[in-house]
């Protein structure tokens, strides 16, 4: 317990500092309350303080649903720690509730005894009714199991901003900065990064800069001054490998990976895309990176998105197309064309809740079967997945490497959870990234478009290369010449050749690794964005000396060569998926194993606790 002087030096109070290893906070409010911004700022500052962290933004599909409603609640969860962590946390320690609806929706995931900071101003009769509260939870007993900090955030904000000449409505808009300031005080984070950010972001509008900065400071001071708050928390920097770090979301990392791949392939980059949640940010990010000779083409639809990319690939660009489930469905036919003409192309599907429009802003992993198997004809396409926000960078790069080396479309699956979520990322050095360039066909004289090299890839020649003029298309091709061929034997040969080419990629990818014992009772097998939750759960289970391994598959077609044999070394296989068991289905067909599926299809990611419980349940039944 120390006695500190408040910022304005007028008053002192006693404040206790508590050291914690691990904290999870949930900011929640109306869609218009700026919770995503608040969360992002808290995250960014926390990253700079040196914690490991993981975030989970969670917002409705309406742009600004009517204020006060339950479905209009927007949340942002951030988990930070002095240890290495993998997920945004099972439950949270502190809930910031900007209105009754936010409280109602989020309370069930708050730890027992957790902190609730409520904006009491928002707890009026109208909002209580909209949130379907009969009585105010601040006045009945319902919150007795928690530490409630009632703060009239709106009033305090407007008070702080008086004199700036703003309307009440304008002043009220800054209340999220007040809340942020208060949380900075509570969790002992510096205000400077946000103050700087405000200046940069709103620089053109001085009044807004002033209002937001003042609100932030007022919130911080409020913590200092008022008697309500007597405890502050500290989370020490994590022991992370030395390096330069930055916080990235999965979509940002994907865009960076695409640019890095173009640079390292020594090719102009091209993205043909059509906006769709939650993939749009990739197009948005890339459209800012034109100085890397990367062209973005916002097409009229998803079909044009991929077809322009195919055209660009034919012209010699490293071509990409990005989308989510329904858009992926629309690209089906053209993916078949890309594989028939054997051009390099990376297709990125940021999965979301389906089927159909489904739950567009929620996460899911239910496009695996579509990606791996959903095309007319025998149409093999390599499929890989990213496991975490930063992992998206490396998998986008890897997808491009495979596409170029094997002259094939490659599908990269990410999902809404890792696309929007963020984590600190130790930046690679450009020079440490491998060169993935492929030579164009060398010799016009001997050039034939459908000859094969040792890994069955055909040679690439692009327009403007004199003497290499050739024709390609979606009709079956004759081996070597690439002419149209209806010959029965040639068709079988080519169908098998395309299958073999893709299967052969197994020789070119790392062996499957395992976290934990090489054999034993239980292997939890996952893919994609469930990585963090499974890893965290596995750590907990292994800490209890349970015979549990975590096998996370990054290469989904073809699988790593040692996978089948590895899977057979465990008594039981548990596959948690955010679908009804799609990986399990494919593994069953491939390896005749009999895994257990743990299907969560709720638009939400797994928590480590989910996995831990299921694993324990499974172990018990053995």
């Amino acid at each position, binding site marked *: 317990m120390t006695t500190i002087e408040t910022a304005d030096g007028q008053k002192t109070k006693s404040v206790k500092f508590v050291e914690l290893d691990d904290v999870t906070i949930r900011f929640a409010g109306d869609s218009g309350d700026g919770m995503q911004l608040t969360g992002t700022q808290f995250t960014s500052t926390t990253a700079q303080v040196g914690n490991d962290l993981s975030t989970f933004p969670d917002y409705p599909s309406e742009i600004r649903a009517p204020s006060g409603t339950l479905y209009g609640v927007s949340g942002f969860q951030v988990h930070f720690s002095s240890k290495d962590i993998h997920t945004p946390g099972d439950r949270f320690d502190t809930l910031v509730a900007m209105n009754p609806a936010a409280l109602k929706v989020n309370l069930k995931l708050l730890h027992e005894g957790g902190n609730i900071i409520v904006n009491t101003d928002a707890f009026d009769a109208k909002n209580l009714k909209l949130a379907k509260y009969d009585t105010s939870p601040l006045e009945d007993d319902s919150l007795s199991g928690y530490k409630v900090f009632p703060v009239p955030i709106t009033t305090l904000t407007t008070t702080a901003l008086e004199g700036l000449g703003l309307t009440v409505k304008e002043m009220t808009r800054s209340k999220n900065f007040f809340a942020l300031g208060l949380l900075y005080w509570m969790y002992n984070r510096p205000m400077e990064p946000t103050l700087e950010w405000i200046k940069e972001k709103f620089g053109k509008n001085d009044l807004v800069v002033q209002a937001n900065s003042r609100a932030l400071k007022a919130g911080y001071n409020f913590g200092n001054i008022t008697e309500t708050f007597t405890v502050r928390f500290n989370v020490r920097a994590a022991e992370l490998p030395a390096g330069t770090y930055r916080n990235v979301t999965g979509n940002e990392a994907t865009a960076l990976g695409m640019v890095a791949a173009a640079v390292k392939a020594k090719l102009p980059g091209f993205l043909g895309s059509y906006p769709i949640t939650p993939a749009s940010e990739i197009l948005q990010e890339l459209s800012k990176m034109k100085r890397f000779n990367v062209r973005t083409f916002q097409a009229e639809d998803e079909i044009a998105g991929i*077809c322009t990319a195919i055209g660009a690939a034919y012209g010699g660009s490293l071509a990409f197309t990005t989308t989510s489930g329904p858009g992926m469905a629309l690209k089906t036919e053209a993916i078949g064309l890309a594989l028939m003409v054997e051009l390099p192309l990376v297709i990125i599907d940021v999965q979301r809740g389906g089927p159909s429009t489904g739950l567009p802003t929620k996460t899911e992993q239910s496009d695996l079967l579509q990606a791996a198997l959903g095309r007319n004809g025998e149409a093999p396409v390599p499929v890989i997945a990213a496991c975490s926000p930063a992992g998206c960078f490396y998998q986008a790069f890897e997808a491009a490497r495979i596409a170029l080396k094997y002259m094939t479309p490659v599908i990269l699956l990410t999902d809404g959870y890792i696309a929007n979520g963020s984590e600190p990322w130790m930046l690679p050095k450009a020079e440490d990234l491998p060169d993935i360039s492929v030579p164009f066909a060398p010799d016009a004289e001997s050039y034939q478009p459908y000859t094969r090299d040792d890994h069955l890839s055909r040679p690439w020649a692009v*327009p*403007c290369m004199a003497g290499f003029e050739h024709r390609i298309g979606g009709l079956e091709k004759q081996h070597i010449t690439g002419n149209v061929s209806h010959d029965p034997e040639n068709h079988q040969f080519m169908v098998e050749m395309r299958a073999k080419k893709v299967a052969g990629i197994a020789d070119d990818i790392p062996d499957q690794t395992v976290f934990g014992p090489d054999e034993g009772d239980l292997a939890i097998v996952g893919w994609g964005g469930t990585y963090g939750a499974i890893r965290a759960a596995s750590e907990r289970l292994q800490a209890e000396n349970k015979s549990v391994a975590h096998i996370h598959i990054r290469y989904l077609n073809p699988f790593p060569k040692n996978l089948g044999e590895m899977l057979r070394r465990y008594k039981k296989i548990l596959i948690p998926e955010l679908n009804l068991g799609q990986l399990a289905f494919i593994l069953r067909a491939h390896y005749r194993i009999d895994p257990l599926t743990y299907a969560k299809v709720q638009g939400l990611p797994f928590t480590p606790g989910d996995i831990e419980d299921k694993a324990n349940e499974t172990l018990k039944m053995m």
Partner: protein
Amino acid sequence: MKEEQNAELQEQLKTFTAKDLASDQDVRWCPGCGDYAMLSQLQRALPEVGIAKEDIAIVAGIGCSSRFPYYMSTYGFHGIHGRAVAIASGLKSGHPKLSVWVATGDGDCLSIGGNHFIHALRRNIDINIMMFNNQIYALTKGQYSPTSQHGQKTKTSPQGVIDHPFNPVLIALGAEGTFVSRSMDRDPKHLKEMMLRMAAHKGTSFIDVLQNCVIFNDKTFDLYTNKETRGDNTILLEHGKPLVFGKERDKGIRLDGFKPKVVSMSDYSESDLLVHDEKSKELAFILAHMNDQPGYPMPLGVFLDIKRTTYEDELDRQVAEAIEKKGKGDLDELLLDGQTWEIGDNGND
């Protein structure tokens, strides 16, 4: 391909001949098919454009006409049905130096491919779209197309087509096309002239080619192609020239308000007639509609040829601008962009 490139330079750049443009594949169209005329005229036109052979790419969709690329010895891409324009748009945007030609059918271009078509036109990507309009789906053996005539009996319209057809010129104008023209397989000279005009135009060029399908829709265009009736039923649009037509050049077009009217040259002199102006969108529309009315000739030639910035130029400009502003992309810099922090070696303790 700037218009200002002069003839002399072009002659000098002629590095290949029509014959060099034939591929080693047999042409597999039916004997008598109008597609042959298109092929031979493009083969004749391209050597005069002043581009290297390796800088030419032909992109097609699916249909009889879309087999076109296989018969050219240039770069070629036989795509999927309806997507030729989208593929060509990507090819040109990523590789602006190329001379990109699209071979497409009335089904490929206006039915399944309609959306890509109108979007290419508004974007004004510098590709050349040759639409082989036989008013039928030929490759699939005779179903009606979006240009088939109302009432036409085909395999899928045993009681007659009930759809109102597109007027390809009109839809191209509505989509803000900058070069819109029409020709026919039976007038190879005019075809070639149009192709050269298309090559010269910077921006999307579109040509609606009346093409005879001898198998599934033989003689639909007889009225316009037949020597007997052609003169009275077609009119050649020539920039700056009065609109005269008729087998005996005995008829002309005048405007009555904004409605065209056929007049007899015995009553009027050429100077009384409407003068064609390729630069006027309004006139282009008026002429596009003209032959909706019976008794009016079908216009052939260039309806509109105006300038607008092209998509690929603008894209190039943005790339250049971005480089100018922030410097050529440096990957390390990009990665460091945003709020970063350092963890020292003691972080590993």
